[in-house]
């Protein structure tokens, strides 16, 4: 089992698909991850399961990898009813989580935008451009930049989890670039394909950040660092040179239009 602790999770799942099913049962959704570089030991650590659940999880994974291994799987306790996860984020993390709300509202509208996608008229093309502006200015410049330029610097940027986050950001930028290129040649299918791929990628990315990355980071930051991050985020917002209210107005009006 020991060599597998330091192997990338994607590699383990490819070799032993049962492991993905087991992880899912513990609400550890590594399956859909695009990168899968995280090592098994880090995944188990970062999810901070109760000790008995962690032991049970590791025993089951060991058994899935090596059915001959002598493993004592702790007796399953009667599962308590699932409770919604409530995180007490520090103020800077809360700010990032709150920023996700507008991005999630945009993502929720994408299937409707794609359904009515129209690139022959100026109005139809403008809607795509406005959506791209929302992604580039709000999601990327306003939000992701705070993560990449400030928050991630407080941690080991070579850690697997941050590599995954950087890779997600990179892929998101790739989809945006592809949307703009497709718009140039009025390729409706390619625009739709990349918008939907962006929506899927960001949905999973935000879930990872809200439920795993930020709580883990909060548990590692000192009070001093939390205060510093709070100030730096506020400063970054001031220097951004535009108001996020513009994008709130864009989403408000699009929701009204599409839900009318």
């Amino acid at each position, binding site marked *: 089992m020991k060599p597998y602790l330091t192997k990338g999770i994607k590699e383990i799942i490819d070799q032993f698909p049962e492991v993905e099913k087991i992880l899912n049962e513990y609400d550890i959704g590594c399956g859909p991850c695009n990168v899968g570089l995280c090592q098994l030991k880090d995944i188990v650590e970062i999810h901070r399961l109760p000790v008995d659940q962690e032991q049970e999880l590791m025993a089951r994974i060991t058994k899935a990898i090596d059915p001959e291994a002598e493993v004592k799987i702790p007796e399953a306790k009667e599962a308590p009813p699932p409770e919604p996860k409530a995180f007490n*984020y520090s103020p800077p993390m809360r700010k990032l989580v709150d920023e996700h709300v507008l991005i999630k509202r945009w993502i929720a509208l994408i299937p409707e935008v794609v359904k009515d996608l129209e690139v022959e008229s100026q109005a139809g093309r403008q809607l795509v451009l406005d959506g791209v502006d929302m992604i580039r200015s709000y999601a990327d410049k306003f939000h992701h930049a705070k993560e990449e330029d400030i928050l991630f610097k407080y941690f080991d940027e070579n850690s697997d989890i941050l590599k995954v986050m950087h890779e997600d950001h990179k892929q998101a930028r790739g989809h945006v670039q592809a949307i703009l290129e497709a718009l140039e040649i009025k390729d409706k299918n390619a625009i739709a394909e990349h918008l939907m791929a962006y929506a899927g990628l960001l949905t999973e990315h935000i879930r990872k950040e809200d439920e795993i990355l930020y709580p883990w980071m909060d548990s590692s930051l000192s009070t*001093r660092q*939390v*205060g510093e991050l*709070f100030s730096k985020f506020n400063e970054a917002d001031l220097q951004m040179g535009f108001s996020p209210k513009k994008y709130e107005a864009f989403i408000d009006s699009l929701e009204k239009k599409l839900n009318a």
Partner: protein
Amino acid sequence: MQIQGCPGSRMMSFENKDAKDSGRVVGKIQSQLKQWPIQMHLISPTAPYYQNADVLLTADCVAYALGDFHRDYLKDKSIAIACPKLDQGQEMYLEKIKAWIDDAMINTLTILIMQVPCCMGLLNLAQQAAQTAERKIPLKFVVVGVQGDILQEEWV
């Protein structure tokens, strides 16, 4: 048995403390206090040790109840102490907390209170001051049980 009276002044005795001692600390414990004065009426909120500091606003009783107070909470922090139940002239406290935030540009404010209901007054006071201050800073509160256990520790 139904317990009567104010929980803040109810008599209690905690027996058998030796048995609960984890025995982690060996030798003389170094004080982490790095300033004087500390009482809220006596402090100047713009004193050098408050500038850009992480500040503890601590109810008087906390340091007696919390065995690891110096090591776990006071280390690297500046402090002021107050009693929201007995102190007079608490409107002055409000102004001093605002001055910490706006003038001394403190980095964070952590409010440590006891579990007794009257201690909530200190948290309310700090929140009120933070809301009226021009700058915004992270606020954390820690509730300490009368036997020194941490009952709650959360960002506001």
